[in-house]
């Protein structure tokens, strides 16, 4: 028995299974979260019918998608058409093998080329989109997949350059080392190089085809974009892949820039009460759920919420055990940060209109890449010149970033013709 658990294949398999299940759940409820957050921002309630407060909506949605007819267009390239969503999903999920969820054993694997592996694997997901759009043998999906390909390739450059400046600071490709380095420095990378963080975040939104960069699936122009012809189960695979990618981009942003699993101010010992945040959060969640239950007039709902509250309380009790608390610490903070970044993604969707394609390319090539490059050069220069010191790095980066951003925006502003006319 002991041997079985020690064997790397067995242990990895168990970890993979756990991550896969957890991720599926997270993604399902991410959709719920998106719908709820959007709804609250838009003066409505969002899903309310399936389960109390629509909490069972993701399950209902999943069932519905599974039960729907899986249509393959008559003149589609059947094999490619069936394969494409799987490519997207596999690429999206496999990347999570290299994400460190916490210190110590909280990773499936920790390759020393971690970030390269992640960039490589996640770039495979584009094939699902390109081939799916092509195999549908239809105009709108094809345009959608072409746009998607062009967009992804363009923004990967900016994201890659932004990541490189983090690698310079960490002096390693391994994600675990990158996080540890942030602990050593005492600050998160976002405070060393905020410019790279902003560039990475924008490029990340673009890579996941989210507002305001959701051109590949812009429904007012291309109906559904690359997945127009997909339905049922295969559509749900694309859907899952997109949201998994969102989680991935957020997780990477957190690991690279926001200190990964680190507690805020992890270098300050006297802030130890923050270590009990998981317990507080669970108790708070339980109290909120209880309050919701008390508000409800439906008996079933009250019981459901009561059960949820009890569950929260029990979990809080378990987490309160010192040993559990210390081991759960990293995962908790990572989750909180990832959720915060995901919230930003949803927020953008509620706020921004959509870019036009040429504007999207302008933003990618003429704004983001110069800014990212300047940040990279400045970071490298400062590392050689002043070494690993926070204030010079931050100041130089901010200065260079603002300067470059100003230059590129001034340069790009004149290309719009908008003559003022004599009024009649």
């Amino acid at each position, binding site marked *: 028995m002991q041997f079985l658990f020690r064997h790397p294949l067995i242990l990895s398999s168990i970890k993979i299974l756990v991550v896969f299940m957890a991720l599926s759940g997270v993604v399902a409820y991410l959709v719920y979260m998106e719908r709820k957050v959007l709804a609250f921002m838009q003066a409505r309630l969002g899903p309310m019918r399936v389960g109390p407060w629509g909490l069972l909506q993701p399950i209902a949605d999943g069932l519905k998608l599974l039960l729907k007819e899986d249509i393959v267009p008559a003149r589609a390239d059947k094999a490619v058409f069936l394969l494409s969503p799987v490519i997207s999903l596999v690429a999206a999920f496999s990347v999570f093998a290299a994400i460190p969820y916490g210190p110590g054993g909280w990773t499936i694997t920790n390759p020393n*080329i971690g970030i390269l592996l992640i960039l*490589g694997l996640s770039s*495979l997901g584009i094939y699902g989109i390109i*081939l799916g759009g*092509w195999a549908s043998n239809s105009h709108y999906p094809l345009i959608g997949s072409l746009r998607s390909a062009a967009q992804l390739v363009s923004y990967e450059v900016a994201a890659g350059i932004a990541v490189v400046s983090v690698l310079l600071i960490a002096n390693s490709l391994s994600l675990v080392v990158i996080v540890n380095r942030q602990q050593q420095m005492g600050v998160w990378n976002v405070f060393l190089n905020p410019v790279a963080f902003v560039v990475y975040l924008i490029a990340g939104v673009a890579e996941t085809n989210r507002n305001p960069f959701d051109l590949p699936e812009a429904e007012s122009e291309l109906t559904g974009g690359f997945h127009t012809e997909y339905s049922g189960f295969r559509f749900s695979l694309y859907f899952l892949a997109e949201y998994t990618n969102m989680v991935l981009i957020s997780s990477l942003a957190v690991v690279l820039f926001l200190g990964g699993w680190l507690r805020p101010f992890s270098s300050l010992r006297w802030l130890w009460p923050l270590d009990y945040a998981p317990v507080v959060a669970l108790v708070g969640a339980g109290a909120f759920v209880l309050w919701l239950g008390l508000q409800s007039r439906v008996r079933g709902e009250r019981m459901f919420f009561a059960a949820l509250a009890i569950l929260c309380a029990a979990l809080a009790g378990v987490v309160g055990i010192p040993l559990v608390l210390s081991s759960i610490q990293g995962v908790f903070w990572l989750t909180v940060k990832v959720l915060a970044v995901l919230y930003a993604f949803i927020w953008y969707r509620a706020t921004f209109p959509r870019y036009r394609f040429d504007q999207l390319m302008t933003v990618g090539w003429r704004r983001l890449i110069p800014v990212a490059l300047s940040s990279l050069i400045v970071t490298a220069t400062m590392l050689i010149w002043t070494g690993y010191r926070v204030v010079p790095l931050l100041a130089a980066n901010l200065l260079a970033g603002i300067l470059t951003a100003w230059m590129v925006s001034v340069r790009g502003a004149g290309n719009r013709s908008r003559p003022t006319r004599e009024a009649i």
Partner: protein
Amino acid sequence: MTLPQATFLILSATALLSSVMVITRRNVVHSAIWLIVALLSVGGIYLVLQAEFLFAVQIILYVGGIMVLFLFVLLLVNVDVAMRQALFSRQWGVALGTAILLLAELVYGLWRGQAQPAIAAAPASGVSPGNTQAVGMALYQKYMLPVELASLLLLVAMVGAVIMTQKRFE
């Protein structure tokens, strides 16, 4: 047979098979897909050889970058016309000769290689600094000049390509 050996055999078989598929498919997009598979299996072989940096570069550059652009262009051109064209051109005799020549060269190399001592084992990886750093050192210190020259060449090609498309659109 050890695990690495088995993996190697599977990967190389996949690479060979998909390479054949690349040149025999009528549909260019299918060819491209098989090419991606071939590149991936070659990447896998790198990984077996513990050259994980090379593996990552293979995936990011060839599979994730170049092949995407490749497909992008393929989707823009008229696939239907390509499918109706003859698959092989008439110079197949020359091609056959070249292939035989290459095969002979390979066999000769292998035969000669038997006598030589085995290739030195790849540097052990897994722990930092690993071979990524070694590659970096080699590229930017030992082979600095060739790398810079090559990048200059690529830059020239890129500028040329941009200028050519600009003229086209006038």
